[in-house]
């Protein structure tokens, strides 16, 4: 106790140095994170082309309700998020549960293989997928040869299948990433819990549902929030795999913001408004996920 107090008073004496350590970081965060966040909010009340801007109040928000491209982008982003995130998290959990069994052979081989997609850049794998999913491409050829399909699937040419392709691509890239988080968390679960469950006659699937998932709840929550933020920001994949097409069927909010700011005649004010739509959605979803996750924990 005495030692602790002494240490504490020592810390106080040295505290004046602390700004030398955190100062640069705090200033940089202020300039490159906090200022843009505030500036975006201000911009969202302005309108105009290029540098000439004027105050527009809530005009941009009104415009959202008439903008069918925005609504399409919003719908697409939600489709990706609602379908892709649960599939990926569930898949990652199952794989992690299998790989966690110490009796499994070739464990590290499987782990390395499944994690490997994480080393690719988003642009690189999107372009790879573009070449694989072409109409006469390797995916269609293989599926035809295996007689899984009778006719080639228009992966990148049809609005529905283009969405499927994007979802398949993201799932390929990120499942292993999430699996690594679950594997690390699983290693902290005492194996005697599973031992006891087995003696009580609980099946493997029951152990998975009743032990693994509840024990991993905090990690699942964390990865779900990370994936949510990631999916709502989807940009690299749609730009490089489908270009947002065909006819805006895979256009995401981030891509629309980019187009509004840097592709068409720039309308920074309106683009900033849409960026705040993403902020708003992320905040609500994160809050919801915390609430759901928190309640189940209690």
């Amino acid at each position: 106790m005495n030692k602790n107090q002494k240490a504490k008073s020592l810390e106080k004496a040295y505290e004046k140095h602390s700004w030398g350590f955190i100062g640069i970081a705090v200033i940089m965060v202020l300039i490159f994170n906090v200022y843009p966040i505030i500036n975006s909010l201000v911009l969202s009340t302005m309108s105009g082309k290029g540098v000439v801007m004027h105050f527009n109040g809530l005009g941009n928000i009104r415009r959202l309700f008439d903008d069918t491209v925005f609504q399409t982008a919003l719908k697409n982003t939600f489709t990706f998020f609602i379908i892709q995130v649960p599939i990926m998290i569930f898949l990652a959990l199952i794989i992690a549960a299998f790989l966690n069994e110490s009796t499994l052979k070739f464990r590290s081989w499987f782990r390395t293989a499944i994690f490997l997609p994480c080393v690719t850049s988003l642009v690189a794998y999107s372009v790879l997928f573009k070449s694989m999913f072409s109409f006469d491409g390797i995916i269609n050829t293989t599926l035809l040869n295996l007689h899984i399909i009778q006719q080639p699937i228009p992966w990148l040419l049809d609005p529905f299948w283009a969405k499927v392709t994007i979802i398949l691509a993201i799932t390929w890239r990120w499942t292993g990433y999430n699996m690594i988080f679950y594997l690390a968390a699983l290693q902290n679960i005492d194996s005697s819990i599973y031992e006891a469950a087995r003696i009580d006659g609980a099946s493997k699937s029951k152990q998975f549902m009743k032990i693994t998932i509840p024990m991993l709840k905090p990690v699942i929550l964390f990865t779900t929030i990370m994936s949510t933020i990631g999916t709502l920001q989807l940009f690299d994949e749609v730009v490089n795999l489908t270009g947002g097409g065909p006819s805006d069927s895979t256009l995401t909010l981030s891509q629309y913001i980019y187009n509004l700011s840097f592709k068409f005649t720039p309308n920074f004010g309106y683009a900033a408004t849409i960026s705040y739509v993403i902020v708003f959605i992320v905040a609500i979803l994160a809050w919801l996920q915390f609430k759901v996750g928190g309640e189940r924990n209690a």
Partner: protein
Amino acid sequence: MRKLSEALKYIFLIIISFISIFPFVWMIIGATNTSTDITKGKLLFGNQFVRNFKVLVETVDLPQILFNSAKIAVFTTLISLLIASLAGYGFELYKSKFKEKIYAFMLLTMMVPFAALMIPLFRLFANANMLDSHIAVIIPSVASIFIIFFFRQNTKSFPLELVQAARVDGLNEFQIFFYIYMPTMKSTYAAASIIVFMTAWNNFLWPLIILQSQSKKTITLVISSLSSAYFPDFGVIMVAIIIATLPTILIFFLMQKRFVEGMLGSIK
């Protein structure tokens, strides 16, 4: 029954592993084939690798492009590691109520997507006349809140006795950081540098906004622009993808443990 479910498990894992690895195989085979063969799904090695490589070198200034990518990634890594480790150490060692509030606020801003930052950031650099420069690509990402968080989490395991002993020995606070903290935390630095390097090397959206002239572009931007051509030459693109992916694959296989540690850093 038991045997059957065991077998199914292995089949499942083999299929998943196969799907995970296949695009890499595809990439290597593709680099040896013509673009037509690739879009027709040819799964055999061809003899076009030299031709594809030649075309790539003729289309873009490959050494310059790779130098650009490396320069951006290396400087981002060095500066970011220094700033973030100083901050992570500072926040953990010199706690005060005010600083905890700053820290919590910083973590909160991490939730704001980059889409909401990029327009003000672009205008900021436009006003400073810094568009189309590598500095503008590097600077906004060096104060990475995630890496600050990563260092602070890891500093929790750094023995305070070392700091106290060093103070008794007469080292000042910065000497302690540079001479004692840094060497002790080597593995944390390694893990963080992998993450920062990879993120910077693979970054797409921000460099796309900032870099306009062909001679300043990164390999990631080049791959994207090659593939968005009206008739993309996939054979050439595959060679470019191999070159762009090689450094990260090497880092992964040489330092797999640190690599995974860096990825997991956030949940320690």
